[in-house]
């Protein structure tokens, strides 16, 4: 290990107590909690905006969430944080019938279970088996599950085939896989899928609207939570400041972003696992950390919103929730603003195999195809949108995909431990490192809160700086 005298000096008298790398929800939560503990923080964000995988836009006068959107029961950390900063919630619209386009035919149904005839029995059998198996995977420590290596060697897709799942059951699980991990079932480790399902409280909790993770939206939008936290932190948040290097010394760290170098007692790295390897660490991270970063890729899930003069589907007793086996928008929600008499908004997800093709299309073709999908589900009026926007998370260089990571078979047992375990004064955050609701906004907040407490331990309680309340360096 080579440490310059300058680095030692600066680390001995740190500029701040803790540096946070990444101003997504997780990093901002960590910074906020540290600030609330009276510590001085500096936050470096590589892109020009804060929020990471939460973002927003205004389309035809209507606010839409381009990234993380929904919250539900059990996601108490993101809800508490939103309450703290005054961002309110409203129920996702679910009144009326849902619609499914399946095998070339349209059907309406109520509740969460689509009409699949005799196939429904098999869908139930597979869901039960997945939920039962998921409960054997300890939260936060999937490698400790019974037969962990065996489960990890399987993909979700190969397990479905081995379980003799019907084509319908496989296709429905594929929809869940695209929505949840942004990938096809063959691309994700079965152990990871099971761990994720267990952390989210089961498949129903993960996928349902009423009583599930899609139950509510934020009135001001999820991005507003990040914006308000960043505003509170003021100059402590540096945008357009990608961190290139983190040096660890005996009693501190030195974080370099462009021309700026900041000394601190600890650093919280709150970027997606695959992006950790973009930072040069000195001394180098243990091999398992570097290898994990290479093997923990983000999925591909894009979102598309169409705005209409009215939520016309409600006139026909439709909820706006739809499923399709054709794509590109394979699952839809009514994302209209709360209250009656306003605009209607349909949200469609394009993920996995659909996104790989659709993401590369010209903007106008993407719009036409999504509206065509919406019309397929809700009739020709869906073509008459007054506004449209889409967000391709795979095209975001400082996010590199979404909604979360999708590690492939054989990766979880050897590398999951590197997601959250600190390496000296380097403390990890980000939703992938959460021990509950990983992949969700709630997981991001939980991981940020955990990382803040770990980082605080590196700040000497005798430090005269400890009692300060100023956020900025």
């Amino acid at each position, binding site marked *: 290990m080579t440490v310059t005298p300058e680095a030692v000096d600066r680390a001995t008298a740190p500029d701040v107590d803790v540096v946070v790398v990444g101003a997504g929800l997780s990093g901002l939560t960590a910074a906020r909690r540290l600030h609330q503990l009276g510590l001085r923080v500096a936050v470096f964000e590589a892109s020009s905006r804060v929020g990471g995988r939460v973002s927003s836009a205004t389309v035809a006068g209507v606010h839409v969430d381009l990234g993380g959107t929904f919250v539900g029961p059990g996601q108490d950390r993101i809800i508490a944080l939103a309450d703290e900063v005054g961002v309110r919630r409203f129920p996702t619209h679910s009144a009326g019938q849902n619609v499914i386009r399946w*095998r*070339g035919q349209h059907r309406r149904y109520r509740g969460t279970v689509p009409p699949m005839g005799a196939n429904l029995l098999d869908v139930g059998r597979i869901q039960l088996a997945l939920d039962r198996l998921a409960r054997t995977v300890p939260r936060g420590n999937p490698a400790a599950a019974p037969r962990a290596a065996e489960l990890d060697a399987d993909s979700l897709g190969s397990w479905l085939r081995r379980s003799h799942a019907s084509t319908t059951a496989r296709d429905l699980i594929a929809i869940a896989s695209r929505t949840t991990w942004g990938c096809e079932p063959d691309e994700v480790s079965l152990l990871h899928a099971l761990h994720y399902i267990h952390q989210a409280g089961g498949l129903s909790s993960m996928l349902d609207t009423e009583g599930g993770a899609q139950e509510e939206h934020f009135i001001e939008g999820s991005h507003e939570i990040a914006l308000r936290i960043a505003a509170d932190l003021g100059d402590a948040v540096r945008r357009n400041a990608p961190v290139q290097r983190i040096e660890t010394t005996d009693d501190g760290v030195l974080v370099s972003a462009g021309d700026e170098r900041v000394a601190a007692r600890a650093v919280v790295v709150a970027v997606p696992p695959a992006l950790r390897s973009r930072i040069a660490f000195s001394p180098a991270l243990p091999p398992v950390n570097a290898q994990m970063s290479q093997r923990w890729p983000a999925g591909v899930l894009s979102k598309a919103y169409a705005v209409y003069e009215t939520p016309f589907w409600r006139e026909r007793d439709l909820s706006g929730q739809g499923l399709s086996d054709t794509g590109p928008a394979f699952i839809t929600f009514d994302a209209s603003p709360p209250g009656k008499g306003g605009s209607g908004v349909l949200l469609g997800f394009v993920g996995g195999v659909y996104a790989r093709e659709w993401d590369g*299309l*010209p903007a106008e*073709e993407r719009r036409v195809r999504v509206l065509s*999908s919406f019309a397929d589900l809700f009739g020709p009026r869906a073509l008459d949108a007054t506004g449209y926007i889409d967000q391709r998370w795979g095209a975001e260089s400082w996010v590199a995909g979404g909604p979360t990571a999708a590690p492939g078979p054989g990766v979880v047992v050897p590398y999951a431990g590197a997601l959250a375990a600190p390496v000296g004064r380097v403390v990890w955050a980000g939703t992938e490192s959460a021990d509950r609701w990983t992949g969700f906004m709630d997981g991001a907040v939980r991981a940020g809160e955990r990382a803040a407490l770990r980082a605080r331990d590196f700040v000497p309680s005798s430090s005269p700086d400890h009692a300060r309340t100023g956020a900025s360096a």
Partner: protein
Amino acid sequence: MTTWRRQYTHLTTASPKAVWKRWTTPEDWAVDDPDLRVAEFAVPARVGATGRVINHGTPAQTFTFTELQPGVAMNFRIRLPGAVLSFPHHMRETPNGLSVTHGVEISGPLAVVLGPLVGRKIAAGLPAVVRLVTTNALRDARSDSLGS
């Protein structure tokens, strides 16, 4: 006579000319249809002409073009014991884009049996084929404009 029928339609910004080229170029068929290994027919295609298709894992089958309206419609049929399998293709310009439809129809005495057995699998692949046809038509148009 019983007819079993499924179709898939989507809108695209691709031009009718580019889509028509994909429909009538034998080399493009296997590129646009993941289930197809080989397609052979004489160009330009004409009504009454025959060709040959080989799907992955199945024997070669002879087909006959039954409709060719440039920029509008194309159809061909394969005779099976007790049924005729047809593949109607249509396109129509609309204010919202070019509407492209691929379908599968099974008619004849055994249609009621072959529909669920054979037609359903073919129908399940139609959305992917329409997406690939239109995506590749867009790509062809971009290549042509870059080369011109």
